[in-house]
């Protein structure tokens, strides 16, 4: 097992091979074969990741340097992987959840033509490959390659059904918003290279290197890195792409929301925790942005009627919680929440995919209802996901969310109050979704009612596995107050210096009891409001504002897109057409006109030529003699 470090390169290479086979053979491969190839490479990566995990657990972190990626006179950058506690956990999440999503996809995407089917699996594999590169990268540049790859793959997959214009515009939106964030990341990397001449994590986060940076440098770099994280991890102000990313096939949403992409920002900040801990201003910014995002997204989720939109805003809100944890220096809690969130969010997305599958593509929950009778497995697993995300004691979400809330309480009780309110909203909208979708009576058409069926095994088995994980996943992080050892925190201790305040056990008990009681109350509220949901008219008043997502998209449209577009039109019409084109054409016209005038000199008369020659000679004489 000690030889596993020599096989690290296989972990990202296998999905890449899967991508190449599926991508190039998409016209030849049958659906069965491309599905098997696509899933098998991820399974192999997962097995290797498990071996790596145990290796790291026993023998600690290690680095692998393959070759010099960039070599300049005094700057060297290796193509290196860093395998430590943090990256090995992310490897497990990415390949494990990724594998389940691949298996699920073989059934979910079965109605696609076989060419598109193979293309879909090729993209999925490329997505996993990019994410693995991001996580394994031993310096910011390798991480950036994966970072960009993830952005590209999300674009490809969100726009997978590219024949619908609104889907391609959603893909464009995701890509452009990500690019804005990526610019921040890139600037931060340049800044680091300019100041300390390296981006290698080991060298960079060593105390000697960090001393080279002034306080302003650290604040600037971390703020720029955070801008990058807001793009990838969908925080205010760059979060609006994530709900629109629902245009992609549902398993893709699960992949983006649970295993890959949105966790990249969290991973990057957790990875650079040594840097972020030195920048109190940035930490305050992260806390405020995270909390605001958690609250805003949760309030929007309450009034959404698209099953996937509710889940999407829920993800944005949960990511806000993770950033709150990062901002309060509670890095372990953020990673823990990434882990548990990956379980239950993948579960719920795949569950919603199962529902959409049964409803024949219908996503509006107002037209569902009473699905529990028809699809028991989906319903029960979905309920488990809801319980987990709401933070019912015993389920995984409870432990991670409680840790974040406790960290916030240690910081200030006002932070705790707002975060708790967002958590209550979470419980409310999740159970609103559950009751409207699975309880009450069916509100769809007759044809749909006739069609309702439980999904095939390839879809339900991943659901069951994820449901089990959602229940027991919290066990690795049981806090000491509840008699656990918090194994995750111990495991991550070498990489992450958590700065969270430690509360005494009595306070923790009280916080847990308070949040549990309030969560139960808000679940009860959701039950009493929506147990027998009847589709009502359009929302009015404040509800309408929420339903329209606080009009943020409209605000961006008016405040940013339209002025930019007007500026673009101005540049096109005035500067480009009049200015630049005018100059270029003017030069041409001037030469044309001048030459037409000069041509008159060429009369063909020999005498005239001689006369000109004589005049020229006389001029030369005059110049010679008198000047």
């Amino acid at each position, binding site marked *: 097992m000690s030889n596993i470090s020599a096989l690290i390169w296989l972990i990202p290479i296998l999905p890449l091979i899967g991508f190449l086979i599926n991508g190039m053979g998409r016209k030849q491969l049958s659906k069965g074969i491309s599905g098997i190839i696509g899933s098998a490479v991820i399974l192999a990566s997962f097995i290797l990741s498990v071996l790596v995990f145990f290796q790291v657990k026993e023998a600690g972190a290690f680095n692998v340097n393959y070759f010099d990626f960039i070599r300049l006179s005094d700057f060297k950058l290796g193509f290196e992987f860093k395998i430590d506690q943090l990256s090995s956990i992310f490897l497990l999440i990415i390949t494990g959840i990724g594998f389940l999503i691949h298996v699920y996809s073989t059934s979910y995407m079965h109605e696609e033509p076989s060419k598109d089917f193979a293309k879909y699996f090729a993209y999925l594999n490329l997505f996993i490959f990019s994410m693995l590169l991001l996580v394994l990268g031993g310096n910011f540049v390798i991480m950036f390659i994966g970072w960009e790859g993830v952005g590209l793959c999300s674009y490809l997959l969100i726009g997978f059904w590219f024949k619908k214009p609104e889907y391609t515009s959603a893909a464009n939106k995701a890509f452009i918003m990500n690019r804005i964030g990526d610019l921040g990341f890139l600037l931060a990397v340049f800044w680091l290279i300019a100041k300390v001449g390296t981006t290698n994590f080991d060298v960079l986060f060593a105390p000697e290197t960090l001393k080279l940076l002034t306080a302003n440098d650290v604040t600037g770099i971390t703020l720029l890195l955070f801008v990058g994280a807001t793009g990838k991890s969908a925080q205010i102000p760059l979060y609006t792409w994530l709900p629109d990313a629902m245009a992609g096939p549902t398993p893709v949403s699960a992949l983006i929301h649970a295993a890959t992409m949105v966790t990249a920002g969290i991973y990057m900040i957790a990875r650079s925790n040594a840097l972020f801990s030195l920048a109190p201003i940035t930490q305050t910014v992260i806390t405020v942005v995270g909390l605001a995002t958690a609250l805003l997204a949760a309030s929007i989720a309450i009034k959404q009627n698209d099953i996937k939109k509710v889940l999407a805003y829920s993800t944005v809100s949960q990511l806000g919680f993770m950033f709150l944890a990062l901002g309060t220096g509670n890095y372990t809690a953020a990673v823990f929440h990434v882990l548990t969130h990956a379980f239950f969010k993948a579960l719920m997305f795949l569950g919603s995919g199962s529902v959409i599958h049964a409803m024949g593509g219908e996503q509006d929950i107002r037209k569902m209802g009473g699905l529990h009778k028809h699809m028991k497995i989906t319903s029960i697993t979905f309920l488990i996901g809801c319980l987990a995300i709401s933070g019912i004691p015993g389920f995984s979400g409870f432990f991670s969310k409680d840790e974040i809330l406790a960290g916030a309480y240690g910081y200030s009780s006002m932070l705790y109050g707002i975060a708790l309110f967002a958590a209550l909203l979470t419980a409310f909208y999740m159970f609103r979704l559950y009751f409207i979708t699975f309880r009450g009576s069916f509100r769809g058409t007759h044809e749909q009612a006739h069609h309702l069926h439980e999904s095939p095994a390839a879809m339900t088995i991943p659901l069951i596995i994820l449901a089990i994980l959602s229940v027991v996943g919290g066990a690795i992080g049981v806090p000491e107050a509840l008699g656990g050892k918090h194994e995750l925190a111990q495991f991550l201790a070498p990489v992450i210096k958590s700065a969270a305040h430690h509360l005494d056990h009595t306070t923790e008990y009280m916080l847990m009891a308070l949040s549990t009681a309030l969560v139960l109350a808000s679940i009860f509220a959701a039950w009493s409001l929506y147990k027998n949901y009847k589709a009502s008219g359009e929302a009015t008043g404040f509800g309408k504002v929420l339903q329209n997502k606080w009009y943020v998209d409209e605000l961006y449209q008016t405040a940013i897109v339209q002025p930019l577009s007007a500026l673009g039109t101005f540049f096109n019409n005035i500067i480009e057409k009049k200015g630049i084109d005018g100059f270029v054409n003017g030069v041409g016209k001037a030469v044309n006109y001048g030459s037409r005038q000069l041509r008159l000199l060429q*009369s*063909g008369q*020999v005498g005239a030529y001689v006369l000109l020659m004589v005049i020229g000679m006389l001029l030369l004489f005059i110049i010679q003699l008198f000047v």
Partner: protein
Amino acid sequence: MDIKAYMALSLTLFTIGIIGVLVRRNAIIVFMCIELMLNAVNLLLVAFSKMHAASDAVKASATYVSDAQIFVFFIMVVAAAEVSVGLAIIVMLYRNTHSVDINFLNRLKN
């Protein structure tokens, strides 16, 4: 004789040549005027050479050679060759256009 007289004669001949080239349309006369200019310059060259050789400093020099006189012979030889080519062109011109008027030679216009 004073050099100024030679210069005046040479200048007169050259000016006659230029004016001839400019105002006459008969190719042969234009050609003759060109020859006139050429020989005006030749005349000046010879005159200067003679004046130069008459100075005492040059006479004392052991390596004195009357370069310019020889140059003039060369120029006359080249002029003879040029005349033969030029006249041949004029003959061909006459065969083609039945005229030696140079104003007909305006095919290169525009």
